[in-house]
């Protein structure tokens, strides 16, 4: 049985048994930390095994509570902590210093997240967060550094380091009061944080690189399409 997030794709590839769900991309079981909801989805998929006539596409009847977007009548989510610079910070503070300060402010929240959930999805690169940040920042000069990961190409190491930085920020924010949607988190990371600014700067550097591999990373693997508006490409 296949849980499908896009009905139009399943109509083309004709998987024998498909349960189409209306959930957000990235959440095939619908709702995190809701075992009853997830169990109903799995059981609906399993029920398709009772039929030997296919291909079948069954439309799942339950919608997940809004995960990405807020309703018009809901209060907007705001980041509950200030990540801005102290008042005595020099105006020409380096990007390195800004990023270090921001990560230091998030560190207690990320520690709390790990204690609460007993897990972290940070770890694709295997780099400690300061090392991941230093590696990503080193690209901004325009020079391509050596890969800090044994046996891994530098473009792949860069992608994994960026994934880790983003996961670190999101997990820290999920430990705080409030219930941000995925859209809130994306808008906060790419629209408000220094790390988000670094990602946009990195994208511009990679797109100028002569090597198509790095151009591809800049074009496809850093900035979600829905967040590019914060720093549109020419």
């Amino acid at each position: 049985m296949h849980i499908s997030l896009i009905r139009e794709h399943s109509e083309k590839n004709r998987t024998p048994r498909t349960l189409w769900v209306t959930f957000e991309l990235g959440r095939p079981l619908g709702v995190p930390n809701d075992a009853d909801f997830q169990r109903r989805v799995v059981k609906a998929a399993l029920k398709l095994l009772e039929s030997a006539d296919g291909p079948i596409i069954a439309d799942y009847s339950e919608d997940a509570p809004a995960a990405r977007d807020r309703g018009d009548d809901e209060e907007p989510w705001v980041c509950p902590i200030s990540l801005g610079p102290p008042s005595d910070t020099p105006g020409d503070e380096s990007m390195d210093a800004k990023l270090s300060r921001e990560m230091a402010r998030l560190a207690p929240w990320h520690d709390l997240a790990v204690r609460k959930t007993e897990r972290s999805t940070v770890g694709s690169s295997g780099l400690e967060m300061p090392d991941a940040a230093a590696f990503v920042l080193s690209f901004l000069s325009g020079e391509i550094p050596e890969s800090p990961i044994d046996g891994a190409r530098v473009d792949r190491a860069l992608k994994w380091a960026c994934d880790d930085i983003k996961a670190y920020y999101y997990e820290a924010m999920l430990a705080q009061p409030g219930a941000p949607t995925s859209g809130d988190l994306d808008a906060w990371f790419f629209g408000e944080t220094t790390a988000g600014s670094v990602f946009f700067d990195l994208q511009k550097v990679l797109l100028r690189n002569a090597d198509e591999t790095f151009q591809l990373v800049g074009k496809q693997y850093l900035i979600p399409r829905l967040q590019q508006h914060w720093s549109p490409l020419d």
Partner: protein
Amino acid sequence: MVRLADVPTPDRTFLENMPIPEIEDAPCVAGPPLKERRVAIVTTAGLTAREDARFAMGSSDYRVIPADVDANRLVMSHASINYDRSGFQRDVNVVFPIDRLRELADDGVIGSVANFHYSFMGATDAATLEPAAAQLAGLLKKDAVDAVLLTPV
């Protein structure tokens, strides 16, 4: 609620134009009752155990996830950045519902949970996955699996 028509551009444009293999042959065979079925998860979420090699952009291979895995130690190295990961960051089961399968086996709804589950990285030309998929079919048979739950992201 998310339907393709409701997805904002440019994501909708991308998804509408994504090449999808059109498969004519759609085998749909009968099998034993659900309470006797042995179920495996095959996900295209790019999950790996922390100790395993990560997926690279364009990977067409797969990773094995043993049934006794501590699912909280799985990491995601999917190439795409255009889907939500915060659900997975909150709860691995929203992508890889291993705890739900264990519960359904304990309750007698399904027969058992497979010894091995499998992970691909879905942002890949589907045609390049065929050799690995054929190999996987053999492995699933050896594990006596007769039902597979496919989960995308």
